């Protein structure tokens, strides 16, 4: 017996936007017949706006409700807005789902993401992806990728293997991938932890770290091209540097400064760093 919300019951009893769109601009799929639930979503997109959406779902009550409400959530929205929808948004719109059923909302998110990826006019979604690992199947029973697990952890703050199973089904059958799932959770939180640490660096720690990065990572690269860099001063997030050797007077020095020095420091120390060249 599931404690489904009124909204979930309404949507599986009277699903909206059922069917198929002929000549759809984007089609996305998730799940499979073998796994016990699957979803196909069809989008009509005009001038960057989703003008129509339909779905076909093989699955339980909450899977149908998730698909149905998702179509309602995206019709009339811009592609940019639609891209931001997470599985949590779907579950929230339904007034919540039982924990064991969260994977239904994830399936909606997955199909939507797949549709957007297949949408020709969208240049690419790589920027959404670049902090994740390569596409790799973790759970072979349910065909769950590392990316999907990573997304589910990130969007829902999942902490345990059991939660990941509830949200993605990964590990729910033979259970052999539970160790791998734990590794992904650990990696995610280690990464988050190290990011947090960086954000809370004291001014002195920050200066030391910037200095170290310049010496160990930036300077050697510039030296390869016969140039070099010196740290002059640090003022909050402003990092004042002096370019030397071939770099000084190079007409590409501005590019070097922004695309290499600044981006390296932003990545490793603080994303708000501005690098300024002083004479």
């Amino acid at each position, binding site marked *: 017996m599931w404690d489904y919300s009124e909204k979930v*019951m309404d949507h*599986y*009893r009277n*699903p909206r936007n*059922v069917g*198929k769109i002929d000549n759809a601009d984007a089609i996305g*799929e998730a799940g499979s*017949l*073998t796994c*016990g*639930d*699957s*979803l*196909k979503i069809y989008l009509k997109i005009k001038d960057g706006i989703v003008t129509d959406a339909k779905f*076909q*779902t*093989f*699955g*339980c*009550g909450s*899977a*149908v409700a998730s698909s149905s409400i998702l179509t309602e959530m995206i019709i009339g929205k811009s592609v940019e807005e639609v891209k931001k929808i997470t599985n949590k948004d779907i579950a929230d719109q339904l007034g919540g789902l039982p924990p*064991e*059923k969260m*994977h239904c909302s994830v399936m909606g998110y997955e199909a939507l993401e797949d549709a957007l990826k297949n949408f020709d006019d969208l240049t690419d979604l790589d920027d959404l992806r670049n902090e994740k690992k390569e596409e790799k199947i973790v759970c072979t*029973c*349910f065909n769950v990728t590392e990316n999907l697990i990573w997304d589910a952890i990130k969007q829902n703050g999942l902490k345990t293997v059991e939660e990941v*199973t509830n949200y993605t*089904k990964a590990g*729910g*059958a033979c259970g052999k991938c539970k160790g791998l799932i734990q590794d992904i959770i650990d990696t995610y939180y280690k990464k988050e932890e190290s990011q947090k640490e960086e954000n809370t660096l004291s001014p002195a720690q920050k200066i030391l770290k910037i200095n170290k990065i310049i010496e160990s990572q930036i300077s050697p690269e510039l030296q390869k091209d016969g140039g070099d860099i010196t740290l002059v001063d640090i003022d909050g997030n402003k990092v004042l540097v002096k370019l030397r050797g071939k770099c000084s007077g190079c007409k590409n020095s501005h590019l070097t400064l922004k695309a290499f020095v600044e981006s390296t420091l932003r990545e490793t120390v603080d994303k708000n760093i501005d690098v300024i060249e002083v004479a």
Partner: protein
Amino acid sequence: MDLIYLDNNATTKVAPEVLEVMLPYFKEEYANPSSIYEFAKKANHTVRDSRGVIKDFLNAANEKEILFTSCGSESANTAIRGVLNMNKNKRHIITTKVEHPCVLNLYQTLEKEGYKVDYIGVNSNGELDLAQLEEAINYDTALVSIMYANNETGVIYPIEKISEIIKSKNKETKFFVDAVQAAGKIPIDVQALGVDLLGISGHKFHAPKGVGVLYVNSKTLITPLIIGGHQERGKRAGTENVPYIAGIAKAAELAMDSMNYELTEVKRLRDKLESGIIKNIFNSRINTSISNRVPNTTNIGFEYIEGELILLHLSDLGICASSGSACTSGSLEPSHVLRAMNVPFTAIHGSIRWSLSRYTKESEIDYVLKVLPGIIDKITALSPYQDELANLKRLRG
């Protein structure tokens, strides 16, 4: 909206006659049956007489072979642990892939404790591979444990034949039968079956939840699972649950009286439901063999749709059934029984078990047959597998 209850393998309604005989023991007859004063006599005699009724119900040779327990799971745990503890030098167990979880999970625990467990498979009709069973029995086999009838498919296993196989291979091997799904549906005769231990549960045949029975034949020694007082001849401590014991005995009496009805009328209604569904719904299939089943059960797969959604729509009309689909139970995998039978994955997730009782009315079956095609149509329209469904429709016309 009237309730149409077709989930009698999950639990059954308490027969009014059963409740009636139980009530005095909640009120004026509250004595402990072990006490020696006159006031305890009624409680004491009730337990004694109930044991006699159950002895007849199972056709045991002696009342001493009947133990009252709290449920089917306790009966199974007592039997299995009890036999293994008495035969510590033997470390091998044989069971089936389609047992009830209360037994299967115990065997998985025993594997962790160092026992070797062989799980016998079934064919697509749900029938056991007896050759595999025969081959598996060896000098080290302490216990063979096989259910009488399967809870999901209703398939009856040839217990008598299995007894013969076991005794021909190893006379020391004990045979436990989980008969929870057989009790009340088909006659049980432990002597003819040749079993050593057999467990049943009251709430599957119109007694309340919370009472079970374990038959242990006089040649079989077991250690108790619950250690304490001298009750149940030292094999199950705990003050006798007098009202429930009275209840299960009454339920057994009623079951014996209605056995013929069960085998004819309940079967007729089950067959009507089954053939009506198969005839009127093109994407349906019977998941089991149609012979050799308990009379009240059928398991039907609806292809390319999912079982939970069927149950939710049925529930909206007051109809109760159950599903072997993953989604219903909260587990992520579909029924282990249907998987062991290799039910095709197009149908396994849409499998519905219908289980009737002697309280099922023909008008209820007619109503289900009237509304079900509409529900299945509605859900089928949602399916992403429209091409496959169109093919199926063409094929089955």
